[in-house]
């Protein structure tokens, strides 16, 4: 993972979040509290500004800065979860190992399990694909499929869980933004 590649990845993710801001917010209106698009957009804008202001020396510093900025700027559930994802990625040498470490951090912070209708349902399949030696593009595909698979699920974590059965029939906003994160990776990481 070169610093340049990671920077391109984060820039592309920020773009995708911005383009899909209203869609993420609409999904969150259906089963949550209508803030996911705006919050993540705000967070990624802050990340790009922070990286611009003080360019990190290496990949680990860049990931740490990204995670810390998201924790400091986003709030809600997505701040600690995305923040922890990037903070934990900082220790690894390869993208598959980094994403796996980040995934484990998300599981520990959010206490969600696969099938709870959360970002875990997109991130887990992507990690599995990478660990099986598949390409980043294939991992992005696995994340998108994981996102689609959240549609019929009844949420068991986060605000959507308060809806019970009524949370079924909508894609999870967190899984949707995570699929964007992997899409950005497929477009920018080799």
């Amino acid at each position, binding site marked *: 993972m070169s610093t340049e590649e990671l920077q391109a990845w984060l820039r592309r993710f920020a773009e995708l979040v911005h383009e899909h801001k209203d869609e993420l917010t609409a999904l969150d209106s259906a089963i949550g509290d209508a*803030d996911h698009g705006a919050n993540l957009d705000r967070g990624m804008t802050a990340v790009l500004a922070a990286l611009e202001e003080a360019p990190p020396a290496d990949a680990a510093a860049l990931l740490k800065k990204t995670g810390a900025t998201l924790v400091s*700027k986003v709030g809600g559930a997505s701040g600690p979860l995305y923040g922890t994802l990037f903070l934990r990625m900082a220790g690894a040498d390869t993208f598959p190992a980094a994403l796996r470490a980040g995934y484990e951090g998300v599981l520990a912070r959010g206490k969600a399990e696969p099938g709870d209708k959360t970002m875990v349902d997109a991130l887990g399949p992507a990690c599995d694909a990478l660990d099986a030696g598949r390409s980043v593009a294939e991992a992005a595909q696995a994340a998108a499929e994981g996102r689609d698979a959240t549609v019929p699920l009844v949420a068991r974590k986060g605000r959507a869980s308060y809806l019970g059965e009524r949370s079924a029939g909508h894609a999870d906003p967190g899984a949707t933004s995570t699929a964007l994160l992997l899409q950005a990776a497929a477009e920018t990481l080799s």
Partner: protein
Amino acid sequence: MKKLINDPADVVADALRGMALAHPELRVDHENRVVFRGEGPRQGKVGLVSGGGSGHEPMHGGFVGRGMLDAACAGEVFTSPVPDQMVAATQGVDGGAGVLHIVKNYTGDVMNFEMAAELVAAESGAEVVTVVVDDDVAVTDSLYTAGRRGVGTTVLLEKIVGAAAEEGRPLAEVADLARRVDDAGRSMGMALTSCTVPAAGKPTFDLPEDQMEIGIGIHGEPGRRRVPLAPAREVAEMLVEPILSDLAFTGGEGVICFVNGLGATPLLELYVLHAEVAALLDKAGVGIARSLVGPYMTSLDMAGATVTLLRCDDELLRLWDAPVVTPGLRWGA
């Protein structure tokens, strides 16, 4: 969307500026978005810190002052504050006797307060104990969900625990009392309309003229079910029945009955609801020891109400009656 704002992105910062000007007895840290008591921490007194997304005013910033909170962190609208804010609040209220974090049970709030407590501990700062409020009977409590939401009991808890902290009681005792209040309180809410989050610009959900949502949350989360609009008498039943079947409220010294407006429902209608709730409680043999009626925990411009019952003993009532001087609650001073 019609809103009396400048820019949706500036709502929280602009409101905090107004709050600081209206309440010179408070100190507002605009950078960290924390409302503090003006006089600073009192040595030997446990500091009480709460916070949450904005849009619930007067909760929590309006409950900062003598007899209640020492600091409140304001997040974006309906979004938990971030750990940095909670760390600043904790450090700012530390009078050497430790700090209690009062957290409403929402995934984001719990995670951010947890990260803040870890940061304070890492800096070997104040001793922090966290109490999570989860009183909403609309949510099924099980191992497989995020658990019950924190709603109306939070207001009563901040008042009662605030009085105990003011008496100089130690952190462990103050935290135990907070848990006892949470265990004894139950809430249920309903909405006549959705609310409109400024950044979203349109109502969070559609609710036809002839329908209402039962089991609503305070963030525009739709409720558990949608039913035809009904008179206040029947609405009171839909709110009180699930509360009474969740916890025994008879005996003891009666209850504090809190009928809360969600932002757009006039006090006139809240009193109509309160009368119906009181009649149902009378029929059920539950005595009302104290009442609180008004918009104390709002959900922006949502029309609707929540009912909270808190089972009381002599101690809780005495602490409830103790003086309080905050923008939102004020008596006995």
